[in-house]
């Protein structure tokens, strides 16, 4: 019994993750559709996402979810089948429906009581009513469309022809048409094998073998090929994959591939390009299910009408041949493949989506706890291997030492790939903000475009989860306070649509997330006045511009004249600052009045194991994160007399004595020894270089970060500790805070 419960709980957990993923996917698809309204592939994906949620919810008996998603699914199904067209109202309705589904799912998973709250029920009923309206109205509109398309078919003006041209037909499968050349069998190819192979990349819905070219018994050459084939294929693969099936015979056949829901004009062109008579081939298409009877008559009508216009146009030139093949485009003749259509439809964005989707399908879900255990174990392995290496060195046995070195290298690789397991792309988190920007800008009556850059930048999953809220806050802040209303923007000579950039990239051992807008910028006068009013600074304090900008992070600081529901409760920015602090990150702000504001967040890449650079100060070992180390130089006695800075190839660089920072007395004893020279480790953080003076350089060291106990947590200049191969403890230096101290 308890086993069963456990199973159920586990299943629910998977459902929770899956549905969350799918809902997020559905949301981003809808947002993409906003820019690309007729994209069938996206609509298909949308339908599939909601369909899967419904199915999974059914398994767990989540009736509320099932009954709600069922209606939403029907509407999406009709959109997919072109019975309903997407408009702005429907788009908003679907977005709201996805929100509602998400709330219902959360309710089912978290609440013990079976009844959903009244407010949730009311919203649900309201949405269902609106969805139902669409379903009902559809019956009317379909008949409208039918009569409309008929009247269009018989009219003769060019404009209406155009509109038919762009009308997609109902065939939702790929249509493939193959005519092999006579010599294909003699060349050692068996066309049968290609058709069998088609079934491995998809499902052959229908297959029609054409015998019209086949001679009678007395005339046939048994070694030549006479058959033609019309195939309807259901597949998710791209046109390239399909045409690759015929790669070996590409010179020995005429191949036409029409994507699902091709346009009337595409079919017309296709029919014209085939060797058989138009009416015959049209009927074959009807039989094979590629066209319906009505569509065929439309295609033929269209063809006739088009031919008629061609004749009219060409009468003067007496080009009579064009009557029979009016729409034969040159590239079609050359390649036999109409690539243009697909190229037009598939823009880069969707390709990216497709790619990421393919990667997603290869994922294995792993319990985060198991992963944490593994990383801990690898940490121990790294420490033990360092210990082994040390001991092996002591034995002075070359062979043993070589083996151990190999082992160490392998451990390093294991460490890297284990840590990589926790790395996720930040793009998914970023995409969530598209919706926020869309909704917020509508609420505020502003026009705002969110641009996402570097979505494929990877960082630790725990960091990603924790950084999402601060970013959300910064974006909302920027939308609410930063960006002006369209009127103001136009008056200030800016474009009506504001741009918010969300960018992520790697920079020497940290990841940088940059949120910038081209809004009004921070007004230093208002900031200072406000800070004085709130008692954060005193009236006669003189602050530099960056210091003034940083005031927004002070607790209890809010400048918005009116508190909106989006941001401006005055608790935001200092919470953001604290959250980022907790991740060992830093946030800075740059702003220019009237031009825009940018927030820059720097975060450490990982929180578990790093490559360190080991140094000795006195008798204690310290570790500096290797990513931050620029170079090591010798400290020139002559230079030290000038003060706490040196001339680094013409650049002024301040330096710090680690011994004085950590009050290490042993260090001064060593210095008295003959011939001792200090070394400087040059570290760089956020573009600033600082030298750290140490007694000895020990070299690279794999560092497993062990958190410090509570007592030590507030020590400045230390970010953690690690255990050396000898079993001693080494302190990990917190470079960012030391860099801050030097300036």
């Amino acid at each position, binding site marked *: 019994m308890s086993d069963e419960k456990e199973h159920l709980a586990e299943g629910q957990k998977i459902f929770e993750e899956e549905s969350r993923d799918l809902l997020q996917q559905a949301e981003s698809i809808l947002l993409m559709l906003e820019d690309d309204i007729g994209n069938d592939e996206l609509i298909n994906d949308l339908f599939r996402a909601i369909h899967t949620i419904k199915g999974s919810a059914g398994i767990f008996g989540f009736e509320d979810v099932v009954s709600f998603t069922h209606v939403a699914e029907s509407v999406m199904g009709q959109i997919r089948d072109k019975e309903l067209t997407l408009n702005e109202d429907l788009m908003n309705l679907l977005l709201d429906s996805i929100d509602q589904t998400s709330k219902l799912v959360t309710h089912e998973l978290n609440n013990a009581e079976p009844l959903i709250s009244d407010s949730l029920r009311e919203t649900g009923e309201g949405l269902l009513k609106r969805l139902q309206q669409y379903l009902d109205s559809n019956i009317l509109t379909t008949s409208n469309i039918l009569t409309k398309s008929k009247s269009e078919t018989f009219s003769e003006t060019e404009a209406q022809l155009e509109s038919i041209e762009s009308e997609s037909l109902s065939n939702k499968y790929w249509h493939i048409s193959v005519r092999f050349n006579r010599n294909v069998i*003699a060349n050692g190819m068996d066309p*049968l094998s290609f058709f069998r192979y088609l079934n491995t990349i998809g499902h052959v819905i229908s297959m029609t073998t054409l015998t019209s070219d086949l*001679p*009678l018994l007395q005339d*046939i050459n*048994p070694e030549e090929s006479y058959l033609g084939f019309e195939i309807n294929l259901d597949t998710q693969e791209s046109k390239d994959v399909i045409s690759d099936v015929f790669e070996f015979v590409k010179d020995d056949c005429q191949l036409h591939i029409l994507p699902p829901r091709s346009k009337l004009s595409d079919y017309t062109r296709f029919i014209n390009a085939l060797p058989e008579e138009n009416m015959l081939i049209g009927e074959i298409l009807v039989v094979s299910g590629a066209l319906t009877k009505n569509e065929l008559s439309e295609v033929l009508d269209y063809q006739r009408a088009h031919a008629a216009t061609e004749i009219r146009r060409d009468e003067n030139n007496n080009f009579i041949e064009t009557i029979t093949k009016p729409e034969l485009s040159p590239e079609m003749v050359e390649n036999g493949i109409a690539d243009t259509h697909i190229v037009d439809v598939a823009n880069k964005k969707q390709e990216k989506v497709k790619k990421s989707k393919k990667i997603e399908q290869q994922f294995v879900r792993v319990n985060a706890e198991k992963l944490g255990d593994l990383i801990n174990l690898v940490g121990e392995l790294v420490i033990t291997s360092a210990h082994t290496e040390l001991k092996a060195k002591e034995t002075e046995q070359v062979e043993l030492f070589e083996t151990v070195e190999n082992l160490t290298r392998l451990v390093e690789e294991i460490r890297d790939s284990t840590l990589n397991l926790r790395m996720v792309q930040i793009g998914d988190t970023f995409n969530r903000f598209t919706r926020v920007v869309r909704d917020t800008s509508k609420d505020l009556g502003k026009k705002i475009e969110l641009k996402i850059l570097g979505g494929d930048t990877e960082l630790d999953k725990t960091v990603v989860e924790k950084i999402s809220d601060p970013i959300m806050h910064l974006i909302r802040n920027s939308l609410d306070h930063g960006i002006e209303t369209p009127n103001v923007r136009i008056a200030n000579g800016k474009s009506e649509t504001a741009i918010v950039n969300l960018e992520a990239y790697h920079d020497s051992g940290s990841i940088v997330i940059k949120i910038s807008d081209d809004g009004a910028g921070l007004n230093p006068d208002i900031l200072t006045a406000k800070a004085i009013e709130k008692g954060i600074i005193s009236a006669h304090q003189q602050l530099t511009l960056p210091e003034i900008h940083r005031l927004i992070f002070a607790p209890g600081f809010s400048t918005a004249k009116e508190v909106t529901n989006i941001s401006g409760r005055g608790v935001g920015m200092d919470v953001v600052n604290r959250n980022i602090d907790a991740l060992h990150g830093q946030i800075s702000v740059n702003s220019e009045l009237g031009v825009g504001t940018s927030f820059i967040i720097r975060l450490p890449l990982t929180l578990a194991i790093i490559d360190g650079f080991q140094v000795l100060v006195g008798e204690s070992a310290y570790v500096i994160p290797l990513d931050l180390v620029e170079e090591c130089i010798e400290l020139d006695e002559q230079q030290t007399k000038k003060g706490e800075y040196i001339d680094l190839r013409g650049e002024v660089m301040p330096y710090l004595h680690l011994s004085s920072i950590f009050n290490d007395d042993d260090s001064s004893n060593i210095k008295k020894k003959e011939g001792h020279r200090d070394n400087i480790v040059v570290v760089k953080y956020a573009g600033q270089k600082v030298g750290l003076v140490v007694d000895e350089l020990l070299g690279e060291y794999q560092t497993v970060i062990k958190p410090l106990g509570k007592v030590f947590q507030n020590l400045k200049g230390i970010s953690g500790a690690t255990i050396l191969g000898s079993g001693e403890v080494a302190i990990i230096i917190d470079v960012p805070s030391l860099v801050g101290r030097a300036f």
Partner: protein
Amino acid sequence: MSFTKRKDIKKDIGCCLLDASPDMTIYSAEKNLIEIKEFYSEFDSFEINMSAVEEIDISGVQLLLAINKSTAQDGKKLVLSKVSTSVVEVMDVLNIRSHFNWTNQE
């Protein structure tokens, strides 16, 4: 061997019984055609026993279709009997079962 004529048991009703060869690929295509042509003019009705066919490729299918087409044109009759699984598989790939008359009788 290839299209072999059986003992002429149905000669009285003008039907020619043929056994299709195990190999109906391009390698035997020429031979198969010659043999079928030999009997084609003699009879008005044909029954081809397909039970022995082990291998068939597009040329074999074409030959069957060509016989079918010719018989239809000339007002003759063609029936396939005891069609082996390898032939059925190919016919299903090409979806041409319905092109032929089938029978299970001897």
